[in-house]
């Protein structure tokens, strides 16, 4: 059947809802972000819960960058230069990004890179 040769096109699935089984990896937790709070404080609850996951995702991107540039120069550039860009980003996003770096302990340049990744990735 077509399912066993690329692109592994299946017959249209049915009865998949409510989500369960091997294609369902888990529900998604709800958080509240209070827009009345100062921007740098808005994401504290989320980041406090997800700090470890954020650190390991950033580390995976760093490992990838180091595999392209083993000297580590690419990471140095991110950590040294991207903080310069954060103050050119529109308010309140620049302040929210600073708050996330503060709450997570991740370098500011790396949080900036994560947040502009869409534009960077088109490279």
């Amino acid at each position, binding site marked *: 059947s077509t399912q066993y040769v690329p*692109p592994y096109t299946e017959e*249209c699935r049915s009865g998949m809802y409510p989500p369960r089984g091997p294609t369902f990896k888990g529900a*998604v937790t709800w958080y509240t972000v209070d*827009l009345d709070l100062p921007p740098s404080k808005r*994401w504290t609850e989320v980041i406090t819960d997800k700090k470890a996951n954020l650190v390991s995702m950033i580390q995976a991107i760093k490992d990838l960058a180091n595999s392209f540039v083993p000297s580590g120069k690419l990471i140095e550039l991110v950590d040294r230069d991207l903080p310069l*860009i954060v103050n050119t*980003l529109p308010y309140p996003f620049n302040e929210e990004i600073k708050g996330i770096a503060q709450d997570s302990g991740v370098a500011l340049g790396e949080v900036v890179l994560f947040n502009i990744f*869409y534009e960077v990735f*088109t490279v």
Partner: protein
Amino acid sequence: CTSLVAEDANGNLFHGRNLDFGLFMGWDSKNRSWIITETLKPLVVNVDFTRNNRTVFKSTNFAGYVGMLTGIRPHTFTLTMNERFSLDGGYIGILEWILGKRDGMWMSFLTRSVLENATSYEEAKNRLAQTKLLAPAYFILGGNQTGQGCVITRSRVLSLDIWELDRKQNRWYVLETNYDHWKDPFFLDDRRTPAMKCMNQTMQANISIKTIYDVLSTKPVLNKLTTYTTLMEVSKGRLESYIRDCPNPCMPW
């Protein structure tokens, strides 16, 4: 990514999306999965953005990312964005930004600003179509009245096309992956055809949150890059998301 807006026979609008990300960013051959995709899955969160203790909009986010890729302004509009590849890409926008030419907007800050401030489908559509961007993109927008659904194809500077629901042409859904809808998709990455086949097989009479989830669960619409599936129903202000896996055999993208 695969995003779709569909209208049922009663004029209800539904919006669904698979967020696929992490292509070519490290393959784990032991687990047959993409490294970045797998590290993104635990970061998926649903967020209720409030002001004066009232919901302004809701979104599905990656924790640590302040822009928006998937969101609903309850009872008003729903919005997702898909990546668009173009030689006139984001790196040019970033270079211009660094050189001080800062009249464009970062894509995910625009979607965040639209969800936070636009108060109608038309206003959202105008802002998404007319704001200069740093990178090209597809914006998939659903409204709260019959016929309000479209795919806005954006270059950095222009709105190249707005493809709308059209009852007269029996276009009861619009579906976008990562290719301009008037061109054939890249033959090695055709998720559009199987998705449309399943939508047509479902038929308008049966479209619902459940059947949209079925379409987004069918390989290769579901693939190794799929991090989450979000389902939205604007009339109920409802957003629900699920973290996904794609059991082997499964396309890498």
